[in-house]
């Protein structure tokens, strides 16, 4: 009998200050995990303080509430909390997973982190150094560096910014900037908390109300600042390999055609029988890594392709990859969709095994859709895909309006769009 998705209920609770709590309890695991999305991202950094959200993210973990920097990290570790934090273009994400018994205590500490960070002057230079080191390390990672350039070239400011910011921006951040960014963007309105795992929903609601219920709403500022910068197509880099990237616009997560677009990218790059892997690597041996993925923001999205190959074969790699993007516009085959549906279905079922993955999905679904979706619902949407519907989408939205970026010893000739 085929494995089916377990029926799990997703609960939602909106606090009076507009903070949103979404939870999916299950007793089939011992763990619990949460993802806390805070509306402070690199797009909210002022033009001359790029990297501010990253620096603030580092600062809030350097002491909060009654705990100093050391007590904070140590207490989380004694609770066995596996944590992670990342800054994106629109949000800062704090994630944590632990044995279910420690969920409440971990949440209590995170309430301090986002609501009562010490933002101490004595920690400022340490945080700055951490951010500077991170920026420098990207210089030694050619693939990551290339994709940063490609994003910058693809999106209008401020949506293509790298979360690491700039050397200049980081060096200019004063404690007052950090405090200001925190008071403007660490706020309940726009904050989403996703929780998955072994917990009791009513108890969670009560606990979250006690931790966040009196967090005052603050007004949303939409003072996004733009400064278009001319990012060149080629970046000279002393490396064996040439790294190349191609981007093109597609529809974002909340668009009604998103699933069609996502499936089309899956045909390109999901699994080892996908088109890019087959044509670029398996048939021609041009490279070790070739990928394409759909990256979505709230109101815009792009497909980004990457390949890394030795310089003498870089032009052929670019040409073959590009030809596959053009061929995608001509449509996909039913067998390709069948394989993709099998992969997506097993991916959904296996997502149930990870409370961390579920908590992230719950929070991000709310951010993009303003509602949640059970895995069961997603499964039905995937079942509803047809090669006709995808081909209709591709006929109306063939890959085009490409953006290129290369990094390596020498520039390449860009394919010309017909």
């Amino acid at each position, binding site marked *: *009998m*085929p*494995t089916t998705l377990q029926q799990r209920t997703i609960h939602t609770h909106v606090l009076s200050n507009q903070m949103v709590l979404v939870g999916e309890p299950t007793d*089939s695991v*011992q*763990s619990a995990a949460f993802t806390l999305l805070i509306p402070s991202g690199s797009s909210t950094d002022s033009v001359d303080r790029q990297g501010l959200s990253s620096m603030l993210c580092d600062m809030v973990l350097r002491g909060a509430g009654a705990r100093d920097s*050391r007590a904070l*990290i*140590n207490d989380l*570790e*004694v*609770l*066995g909390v*596996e944590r992670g934090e990342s800054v994106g273009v629109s949000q800062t994400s704090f994630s944590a*997973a632990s*044995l279910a018994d420690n969920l409440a205590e971990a949440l209590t500490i995170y309430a301090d982190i986002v609501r009562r960070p010490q933002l101490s002057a004595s920690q400022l*230079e*340490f945080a*700055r*150094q*951490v*951010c*500077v*080191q*991170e920026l*420098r*390390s990207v210089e*030694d*990672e*050619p*693939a990551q560096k290339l994709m940063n350039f490609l994003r910058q070239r693809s999106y209008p400011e401020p949506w293509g910014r790298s979360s690491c910011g700039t050397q200049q921006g980081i060096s200019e951040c004063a404690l007052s900037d950090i405090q200001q960014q925190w008071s403007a963007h660490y706020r309940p309105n726009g904050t989403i908390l996703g929780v998955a795992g072994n917990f009791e929903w009513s108890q969670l609601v009560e606990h979250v109300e006690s931790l966040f219920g009196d967090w005052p709403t603050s007004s949303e500022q939409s003072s996004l600042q733009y400064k278009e910068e001319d990012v060149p197509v080629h970046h000279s880099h*002393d490396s*064996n*390999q040439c790294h190349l990237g191609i981007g093109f616009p597609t529809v974002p997560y909340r668009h009604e055609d998103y699933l069609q677009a996502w499936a089309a990218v899956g045909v390109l790059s999901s*699994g*080892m*029988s*996908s088109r890019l*892997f*087959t044509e670029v690597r*398996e048939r*021609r*041996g*041009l490279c*070790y*890594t070739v990928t394409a993925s759909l990256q979505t923001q709230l109101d815009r999205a792009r497909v980004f392709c990457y390949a890394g*190959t030795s310089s003498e074969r870089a032009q052929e790699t670019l040409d073959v990859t590009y030809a596959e993007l053009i061929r995608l516009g001509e449509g996909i085959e039913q067998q390709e969709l*069948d*394989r993709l549906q*099998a*992969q*997506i*279905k*097993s*991916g959904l*079922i*296996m997502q149930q*095994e*990870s*409370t961390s993955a579920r908590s992230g999905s719950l929070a991000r679904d709310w951010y993009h859709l303003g509602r949640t979706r059970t895995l069961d619902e997603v499964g039905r949407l995937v079942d509803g895909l047809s090669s006709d519907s995808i081909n209709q989408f591709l006929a109306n939205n063939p890959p085009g309006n490409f953006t290129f970026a290369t990094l390596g010893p020498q520039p390449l000739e860009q394919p010309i769009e017909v």
Partner: protein
Amino acid sequence: MKFNSHQLDNGLEIVAECNPSAYSIGLGVFVRTGSRDETAEVSGVSHFLEHMVFKGTPRRSADDVNREFDEIGAHYNAFTSEESTVYYAAALPEYQKACIDLLTDIMRPSLREEDFSMEKKVILEEIQMYADQPPFGMDDRLKELHYGDHPLAYSVLGTLQSVGDLEVEKMHHYFQSRYSPSNLFVAAAGCVDFDDLVAQVSSCCGHWEAKSVDRLLAPARSKVSQATAFPTPVHCVHRPTATQQYLLQLADAPSSEDDNRYAAKLFATMLGDDSGSRIYWELVDPGRVESASLGHYEYLAAGMYYTWVGCDPEMAADNFAQLTQLQQQAEATGFTQEELIQAKNKVKARVVLGSERPRNRLFNVGGNWMQRHEYRTVRDDLAAIDAVSLDDIHAVLAQYPLTNCTTLTIGPLEDLGT
């Protein structure tokens, strides 16, 4: 949760941790072969062979292998280390049969000349990709410096020269000598039907010819003798185009047969985990480095402590001095009970959180069988961690001093000035 094992007449073993309430299965073929089983002439052949295994069999083309794995929605891959080659797939339980059919069939690959030539290009790209990223191939160099001509020092990837020169006949010969039923086993975890598994593996692999396989696993020890005056020399590799300076260290540690491996892991966690450790507080938290960590890696008849630091070259000499001081201090005065409790809680939480996915349990079950021919439950591992005392830690430190290490640095500096 129930452990089952079975051995076929030709020596092939089947081991499984069966958990009927899991959503998925993890299946793997574990082969007792890796770079330490190679000679210099065929350096890289184990890893190259791992790629070639996916290139088809008498009844499947390379495209068939990729397509069929994708058709059942499996998440599959393989990896090669110094002493093992592992092929694995995570899939839904209803595809157990299809998955085993694929995994066992590809263990008898055709190794066709044209596929070999094509895949050689991919491997050469992979080697160049790693040569462009930190630590720029220096992990292999460090092993050479530490172990001399011991096979454990051989590169897993091989070199452009050794892989470029490799002939398909040599690979055939290596395959024949290593992929005998007595030198590999099938492991499984999750919602596995064990009776079905045994029946199918027996029918697919029962006719494989039993051949004895020699394996010389000489204990590997540092070339740096105990008598060498402290401090041990620092090997400097000048790479002017790098932005950051990287520091790598290797020291002897408890092997996979040694019960002290748990104490070694807790020691590495207290001194050098990437969060909350002494190295973290001294080097990472104040932003003196981009990253710094210490890990314990276990092999048969050998163990390694591997230290990694990436930082601004200007701070490299100071950081190195600080690192050495932390190591000396640990050896001289040991650790506190609080540090041990924190490390235990952290490591135990990782064990439990990781165990929720069958694919993770697969590597645990397979790894234990590979290294010690034993099955260990999650509870066994937790109990072993709990049982470690400060005295155990200090005894391991005395037996395997971290200061008796090989050090290599690569980056813009011509020397560390030490």
